[in-house]
């Protein structure tokens, strides 16, 4: 891999970015956001006594980060924290703010507002000196080391990190805008989340809510099952007699299997019908009720939430970072550098590295890639003593949550991650303590990523 090693030293005095995290007071994460939408969630996020100060370092290099989600933000932040003032980091993101997918299922039950899940890019810019540009990267030239944006401007880089998230397949029958406005996935938090919430509010009591889950791998393995649970819980209390049909393309529950099987067969046995091996074949959204055909037969629903199969974000797909016929970008697992383009690292949901697609994991991929890039700038070999941990708290009802964890060690002999320790682990049962822990985990994770 070729890179230009800068040999001059930057005069790097102690760099203090004088960070001030907005404090809006108040500690109840479930209270509606009374103040500015962008600052309130960070105020509710973990309260660092002070932000971490970037190291004094003589490292130099330019990095462009494409995509302002969990992985992109962590990468940008830690490139500055660990790299210091000589490392220039430009984050290009097409949206003016980030809306968290994590906990967006609670918007469907009215426990959270979508605005409470909106995060600003201003804090990372202010605290660490990340240059944040609103724009869309469309082209990548790995030879010239240059990206091109939709407005035809360009950015040169020494190393590129691409973290655009996922795009969704169009399910048969949902080719029209009208159909997709009616049958939403709400798997990218934002307007579709609000649409689905409103559909559930308007659903007749005794009606049927159909959810479809794509074949693995997809973004957030436990997420769809969490959604089925919290919606079932809400329907039990608010529209008794309503049903939830879960059509899962997979042969069994893909995360926290014990927790969700117990919930579906116990707490929600009169509400949820879980159907495995039921990949969706087509959807008809033209009639008053919506028909969903799958490999396990036909169901009809009043509200249908179809989560389609996913693949890497558009900028990854369009720039030869995915092998023919594949859905995800292949990467070297220790560095997340693309197997197809030198100097380009793909992190987050877009890549395939043998670990789950999740925000908590994307955050770590960002740090791993940042460390690998800084080592490369210094002429050092990448670290191979790597661990990725998955940790996630799943709401099961309006007041209880379970948790999952798994630890993956990088194995240099295979060049991949393997699960170690006790394997995939989950809470013995959902509890109210688990629910409080969920809120603390979420606030801490978002603070660590966006502040």
């Amino acid at each position, binding site marked *: 891999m070729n890179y230009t090693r800068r040999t001059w030293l930057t005069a790097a005095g102690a760099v203090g970015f004088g960070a001030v995290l907005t404090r809006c007071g108040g500690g109840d994460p479930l209270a509606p956001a009374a103040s500015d939408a962008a600052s309130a969630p960070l105020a509710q996020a973990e309260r660092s006594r002070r932000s971490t100060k970037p190291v004094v370092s003589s490292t130099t290099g330019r990095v462009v980060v494409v995509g302002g989600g969990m992985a992109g933000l962590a990468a940008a932040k830690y490139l500055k924290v660990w790299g210091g003032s000589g490392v220039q980091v430009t984050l290009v993101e097409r949206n003016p703010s980030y809306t968290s997918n994590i906990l967006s299922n609670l918007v469907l039950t009215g426990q959270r507002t979508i605005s409470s899940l909106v995060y600003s890019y201003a804090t990372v810019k202010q605290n660490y000196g990340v240059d944040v540009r609103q724009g869309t990267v469309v082209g990548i030239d790995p030879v010239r080391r240059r990206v091109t944006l939709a407005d035809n401007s360009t950015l040169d880089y020494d190393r590129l990190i691409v973290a655009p998230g996922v795009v969704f397949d169009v399910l048969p029958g949902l080719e029209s805008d009208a159909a997709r406005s009616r049958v939403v996935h709400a798997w990218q938090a934002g307007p579709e989340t609000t649409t689905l919430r409103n559909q559930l509010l308007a659903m007749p009591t005794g009606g049927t809510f159909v959810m479809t889950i794509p074949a693995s791998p997809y973004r957030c393995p436990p997420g769809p099952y969490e959604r089925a649970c919290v919606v079932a819980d809400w329907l039990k209390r608010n529209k008794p007699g309503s049903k939830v049909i879960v059509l899962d393309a997979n042969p069994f529950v893909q995360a926290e299997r014990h927790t969700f099987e117990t919930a579906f067969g116990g707490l929600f046995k009169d509400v949820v019908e879980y159907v495995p091996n039921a990949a969706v074949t087509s959807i008809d959204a033209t009639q008053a009720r919506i028909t969903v055909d799958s490999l396990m037969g036909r169901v009809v629903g009043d509200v249908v939430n179809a989560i389609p199969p996913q693949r890497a974000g558009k900028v990854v797909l369009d720039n030869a970072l995915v092998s023919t016929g594949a859905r995800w970008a292949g990467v070297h697992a220790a560095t997340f550098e693309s197997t197809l383009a030198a100097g380009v690292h793909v992190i987050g949901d877009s890549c395939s590295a043998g670990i789950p697609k999740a925000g908590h994991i994307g955050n770590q991929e960002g*740090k791993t890639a940042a460390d690998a890039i800084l080592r490369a700038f210094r002429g050092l070999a990448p670290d191979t003593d790597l661990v990725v941990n998955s940790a996630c708290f799943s709401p099961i009802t309006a007041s209880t949550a379970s948790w999952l964890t798994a630890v993956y060690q990088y194995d240099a002999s295979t060049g991949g991650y393997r699960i170690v320790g006790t394997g995939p682990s989950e809470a013995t049962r959902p509890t109210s303590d688990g629910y409080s822990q969920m809120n603390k985990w979420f606030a801490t994770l978002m603070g660590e990523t966006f502040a």
Partner: protein
Amino acid sequence: MTTTRRFMCGLAAVAAALLAPAAPAQTTAPPEGRLLASNCFQCHGTDGRSGFEEINGKSSTEIYSKLKEMQRKQPGTEDYGIMIPHAKGYTDAQLLKISKYLSTIR
């Protein structure tokens, strides 16, 4: 040696490793344990200053001992929380690196 003495010798060796002065710093190599420790921050806050429990600035022996204690817990015990299977996924060498690095964060 008795089991107790073997344990104490082992603990002393670990303590020695944790308290030994670091090798002369490389001008460019990242501090050992920094990347590993950074993956505690999703739940413990940036630099370990918040979240479920503050983990920065404690003695490396204290942190290491706590992590090893978690590793010894078995499923079915009352306080089998998320940190236990977590701790079980790391090697001793990694826990040592993490503990040393966290102890340096003031």
